[in-house]
């Protein structure tokens, strides 16, 4: 893991407030485990902290992120021109652990696709992806479909199943195959619903959570997620996470 200088090669608005940013790195990035993230120094004097972003995709000397503008840091990033220099720290954190002998079921809500995409790409055929967003405009966030057709839903029904991704999952969980293992990323409320759906059969599940971060390196203990470990309930999203076992965190 390094802190490497990078140059923005692409910073494209895909739809609404969603952007894809491709960064060329001064030196090769270490192998990435899906679910890992980078701490990006946004090129603006106004932005003090680095910001964490999941590694959407990567190559030997490039890393790509998919992001949504929600505040001043992401807005500043969105306005960064090509050729702008940035610092990229990563890959960071504990990513997804894929367990053999299960059918991988990927669940992404909205920008959550950013944290799932690389896993989807690596799992190839075996994986079946459930993707939910608010409207068809956001479907392109999936990027080019890699293999098995994803199951899509939109809140407004403008594309695919009408409803949220957990409803979609529930409706077809029985059909996905033997021994499903769920890997999910999305907004907090989604995890609660997910828990409800998987509870009965206690289907195994890993989730990628987001917490505010300062260092991304495990130094500050600022990014904790509460778990059921009562000896040490608060675990660092940047070290023990951002991927946690759904059944071990308290929502």
């Amino acid at each position: 893991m390094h802190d490497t200088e990078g140059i923005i090669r692409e910073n494209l608005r895909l739809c609404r407030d969603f952007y894809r940013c491709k960064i060329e790195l001064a030196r090769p990035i270490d192998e990435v485990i899906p679910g890992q993230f980078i701490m990006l120094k946004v090129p603006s004097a106004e932005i003090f902290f680095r910001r964490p972003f999941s590694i959407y995709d990567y190559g030997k000397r490039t890393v790509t992120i998919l992001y949504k503008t929600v505040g001043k840091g992401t807005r500043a990033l969105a306005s960064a021109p090509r050729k702008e220099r940035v610092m990229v720290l990563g890959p960071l954190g504990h990513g997804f652990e894929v367990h053999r002998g299960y059918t991988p079921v990927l669940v992404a809500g909205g920008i959550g696709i950013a944290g799932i995409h690389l896993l989807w790409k690596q799992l190839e055929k075996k994986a079946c992806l459930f993707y939910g967003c608010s409207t068809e405009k956001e479907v392109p966030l999936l990027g080019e479909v890699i293999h098995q057709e994803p199951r899509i839903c939109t809140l407004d029904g403008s594309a695919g199943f009408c409803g949220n991704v957990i409803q979609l999952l529930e409706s077809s969980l029985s059909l996905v195959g033997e021994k499903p293992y769920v890997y999910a990323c999305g907004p907090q409320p989604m995890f609660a619903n997910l828990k409800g759906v998987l509870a009965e059969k206690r289907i195994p599940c890993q989730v990628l959570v987001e917490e505010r971060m300062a260092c991304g390196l495990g130094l500050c203990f600022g990014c904790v997620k509460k778990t059921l470990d009562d000896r040490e309930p608060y675990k660092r999203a940047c070290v023990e996470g951002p991927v946690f076992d759904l059944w071990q965190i308290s929502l």
Partner: protein
Amino acid sequence: MANLSIDLFKKTLRNPVMNGSGTMGYGREIESLWSIDTLGAYVTKGLSLKPHHGNPPPRVWEEGQGMLNSIGLQNVGLERFFAEYFPLFKKRNTPIVINFFGFTDEEYIECAASIRPDPFIIALEINLSCPNVTKGGICMGKEAQSVFSIIERVKRRTPIPLIAKLTPEVADIVQIAQAAVSAGADGITLINTMPGVSIDLAAKRVAFRGGLSGPPLKPIALKAVADVSRAVHVPVIGAGGITDHEDVIQFLMAGAQAVQVGTATFIDPFAIPKMLAGVARYMDEHGLARLESLVGAAHA
């Protein structure tokens, strides 16, 4: 290359740069980027007799060119620290400072008493900025009287050099430092975070309450160091917004024997190695044999 070593509590440190307590995890985390023996000394996260869970998230908040934090002193407790984390520093031959706290005088005292002397432990650093539950939650470090009595009682129970780390939220930090020294403190660390608040405009609520750190603290910290180092005869360790080697040298000139760096590492994880290289360059350019010659230079 220049010799950056300094003497502190009869030990010689490789260089005057330590991390600030609570800003370098348990020591091992940073080693994915650089070895912990890069530091003059490692300062532990605030430790207590029993483990503490700390506060629910969010615990960190960006505030202008600085940050607010309210970690809530999460730590594994002394016992687990010595069992699981302490061995690394011996292996790396890196001296450490044990930062500790309690919520009552007794907790402070027991905590200090339970730490066995060790060649690698150069000092204990008592964090006087935390709420004293027996005194209605107002913090120890605010009254000279309570500072004097806690330091005096702690000193009676440990042979290890004791550093008093002070909060800037006081009427007269020199007076507090003098109380600490007359009670037997062997050194003073200046300063801890300054309490602050951030408002969330959209949500119309207090977005965050916590301790301010980073560049906004620097002039306040430099004043504390300049004034206290003139008034007491024990070593002063400076902290507050140190970001580059020029800041390090400014704190030395203001009267600090050593410095601690916290927030800067979150923004640039190589801030400390870079500032050490910068200080070495400065020494070469100015033909300085020893850093001591800079300490307090600004007093003259």
